[in-house]
């Protein structure tokens, strides 16, 4: 059995690792957003108000491909719809006044939820949720600002290979999700649909249509119903 101190040490180490990752991730978001012609103010506003890496990258990705703003917003919202489910799971960590719950909800991320859920002690879980959330929020936004300022100074993103950075980042986010067959089927169907529709629909539409790939995954047995 690990001692309480060992558990606390592990939680702190996990939070620090995730914070370091979020800093670099935030910088790359800032660079890519400004190279997709978002202003520094809008880039920072996305990180402050939306505070969801995958969706923010998706929005920038659709815009960079010449997609309509509406398509960018809808694909971002579809990605963030998973927070509906996560919100239910972390509700026990967010007891208290309305203000406390409202603030805690904004700190909900895949990471803060996952670390808190992994914590066996209930009081420690609450602390882990808040510490991870606050640290991630600060680091993510500081990284975004730095990246946005650096990105402004960079000229044509394609010369520097930055157009390959975004799909590489998506790939790195995608692979850990492909743990079971339904998700693999959903991913394959989504990618296939998107490529088929690319030549015949305006940019952005293929991404939205790919959401139907998620429905294809429903028909496959063998799903895990727990954390995603």
């Amino acid at each position, binding site marked *: 059995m690990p001692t309480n101190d060992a558990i606390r040490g592990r939680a702190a180490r996990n939070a620090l690792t995730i914070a370091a990752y979020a800093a*670099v991730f935030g910088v790359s978001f800032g660079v890519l957003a400004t190279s997709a012609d978002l202003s520094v103010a*809008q880039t920072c506003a996305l990180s402050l108000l939306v505070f969801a890496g995958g969706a923010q990258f998706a929005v920038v990705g659709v815009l960079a491909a010449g997609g309509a703003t509406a398509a960018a917003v809808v694909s971002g919202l579809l990605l963030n719809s998973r*927070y509906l489910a996560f919100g239910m799971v972390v509700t026990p960590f967010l007891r208290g006044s309305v203000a406390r719950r409202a603030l805690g909800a904004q700190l909900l991320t895949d990471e803060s939820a996952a670390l808190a859920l992994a914590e066996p002690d209930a009081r420690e879980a609450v602390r882990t949720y808040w510490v991870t959330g606050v640290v991630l929020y600060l680091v993510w936004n500081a990284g975004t600002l730095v990246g946005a300022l650096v990105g402004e100074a960079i000229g044509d993103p394609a010369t520097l290979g930055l157009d*390959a950075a975004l*799909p590489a980042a998506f790939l790195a986010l995608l692979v850990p999700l492909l743990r079971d067959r339904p998700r693999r089927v959903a991913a394959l169907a989504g990618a296939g649909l998107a490529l088929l529709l*690319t030549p015949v629909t305006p940019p952005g539409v293929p991404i939205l249509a790919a959401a*139907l790939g*998620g429905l294809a995954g429903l028909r496959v047995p063998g799903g895990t119903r727990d954390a*995603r």
Partner: protein
Amino acid sequence: MSWAALLVLAAGTYACRAAGPLLLGGRELPPRLDAVLGLLPAALLAALVATQTFADGTALALDARAAGVAAAAVALWRGAPFVAVVLVGTVTAALLRLAGLP
């Protein structure tokens, strides 16, 4: 991107986050909806990888960018961390462009 669109995205995202803690107080989602929500990220991210790698406007293209993503996939398969994966993709594409590939 307009500020109005940005605020719609922010408000929608916050609504998803806060629905559980503020409104439902821990009640469970219908299992069917829960299953769809679980599969959406994989479908959407895969579509983003595909289009960002091969789409050029409404045409499909095989260029330095695709080679960069392929190199990133190899790095990922070898267990490289996130930042290294992105860097490998970026540097590969940049070098191939320098060598004259489109």
